[in-house]
């Protein structure tokens, strides 16, 4: 199984779709950086020269693509996360089924090994495709803006005490950033994995890529409508999502994992390889 995982990883990370996804999110990161960072640098210089009324510096922790969901580029990024996660390797299972590669694999190794390794690699590829540009964005903002503790009384951090993990943000913003990075990695991985079970029912390659996005927006809409925004995926993933607790994050992650893995594995194991 380890060999299978290595082969799939190589197939994914050397494929053009992974890099296309990274390029799209990279373009958003660069656009955000060009839009936002010069303004922050200028505002910091004015503060240091004592000519700006607000005495709080713009810091790197509040000016990278994952810091909020306020600006245009951040909005686009957070809404297309399912696409960014699924494009790299989401339709690989569809291709394996339709082009017959699965037959070659299943005569050489037990089917469950193939299914588990496929799931692991799709998860990793989805997570990496989204988080790599986020790391890149944080590095850019750290290169130009001070990396220091945020000021609680500065409203433009847009992280208020009622938001989840806000105490971590004000005490140890680096851990907060890593925590959100891990959250986005896990959820992106599960979004990518949502494309796997739907493949069994899909006659077109587009549907496995579309399905996670539809689940994302429809479930977010539904939970916000019934006044349970703590379970809205859109709110969970963003730092400025007012609702959500550690418990809802964990529950949602487990639900996504279960709903993506169990049908994929059990249908795959029980189905004939046609």
């Amino acid at each position, binding site marked *: 199984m380890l060999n299978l995982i290595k082969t799939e990883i190589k197939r994914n990370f050397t494929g053009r779709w992974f890099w296309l996804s990274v390029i799209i999110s990279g373009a958003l990161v660069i656009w955000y950086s060009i839009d936002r960072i010069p303004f922050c640098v200028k505002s910091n210089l004015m503060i240091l020269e004592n000519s700006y009324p607000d005495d709080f510096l713009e810091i790197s922790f509040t000016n990278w693509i994952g810091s909020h969901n306020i600006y245009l580029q951040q909005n686009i990024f957070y809404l297309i996360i399912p*696409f960014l996660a699924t494009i790299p390797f989401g339709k690989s299972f569809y291709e394996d089924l339709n082009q017959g590669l699965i037959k070659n694999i299943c005569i050489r190794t037990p089917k469950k090994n193939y299914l588990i390794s496929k799931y692991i690699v799709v998860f990793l590829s989805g997570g990496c495709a989204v988080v790599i540009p986020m790391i890149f964005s944080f590095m850019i903002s750290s290169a130009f803006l001070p990396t220091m503790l945020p000021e609680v009384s500065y409203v433009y951090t847009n992280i208020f005490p009622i938001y989840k993990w806000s105490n971590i943000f004000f005490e140890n913003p680096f851990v907060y950033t890593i925590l959100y990075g891990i959250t986005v990695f896990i959820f992106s991985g599960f979004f990518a994995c949502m494309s796997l079970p739907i493949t069994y029912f899909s006659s077109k390659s587009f549907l496995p890529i579309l399905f996670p996005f539809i689940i994302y927006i429809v479930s977010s809409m539904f939970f916000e409508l019934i006044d349970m925004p703590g379970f809205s995926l859109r709110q969970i993933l963003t730092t400025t999502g007012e609702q959500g607790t550690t418990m809802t994050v964990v529950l949602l992650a487990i639900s996504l994992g279960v709903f993506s893995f169990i049908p994929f594995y059990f249908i795959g194991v029980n189905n004939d390889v046609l």
Partner: protein
Amino acid sequence: MKNGFSVIIKRFIVEGIIEKWKLFLFVILLFVSIDFIFVKNVSNIFNESELNVKVGIADMFMNLFLGNPPFSSEENQGINIQMIWFVFHSLIFSFVAYYATNDLKNGSYIFLIKIKSKIMWWLCRVLWCAVFVLIYYFLFFIVSCAFACLFGSISFTPNQNIAGAFWELDLTGLSNYQFWFSVFFLPLIISIAISIVEVTICLVLKPILSLIIVIGYIIVSEFYSEPYLLFNYIMILRDNFMGIKNINNEAAFFIAVSIIAFCSIIGSTIIKKKDMI
């Protein structure tokens, strides 16, 4: 020529709409949930009130096409995109992209060779987009009518009590024509225009990239109130008929029709030079 046109459009409708009945079933369920929750919220708010407020068809359309007020970057507040509005439009363009160029890849050259015209295929595709969007909007209309019959009133005039309580809107002086132009006709024609733009882009790029571009365009429209960002015209909270000082939505119809004509011509030019592999 006429036979070929009717055969191709019939094929598109069968493959792109009738065979996709499960997608439409999902869409109907979604609309039912949206309307159900709205009706429940209205009854919760007005339950103890002396006013006998019943949700009409117009109110359900208002709920759907509300959108966000014009964005101001100076306030540094950001936008919380109204998810119903976003989901409604994203689904149209997702489904359009889903079917967009599949038949070219699926060995449907037989039909092309029989009709002997790539341009006719393209024009049928444009017409299919219009029919698909119309059916989508019509489904919402049907679901809203059903809810209005069962739980509300069949009213085509928006209820000021609901508009005031939910969205702080003053609808005095708003005529029925202006209202339905803003919440049905204009969104319909703009959705048709953008779906045709999307299908035109699909001729050149992969459908998934075309969909990402359209979604990006929707989100950019949230942030900028410019005449060329057509989704501004589909948000009631940015509608100049509602007394909000924003871009003029009467020009939107002409912009949308121009876009349809322009994309039809551009698409014809592209499809003539496209290889059918």
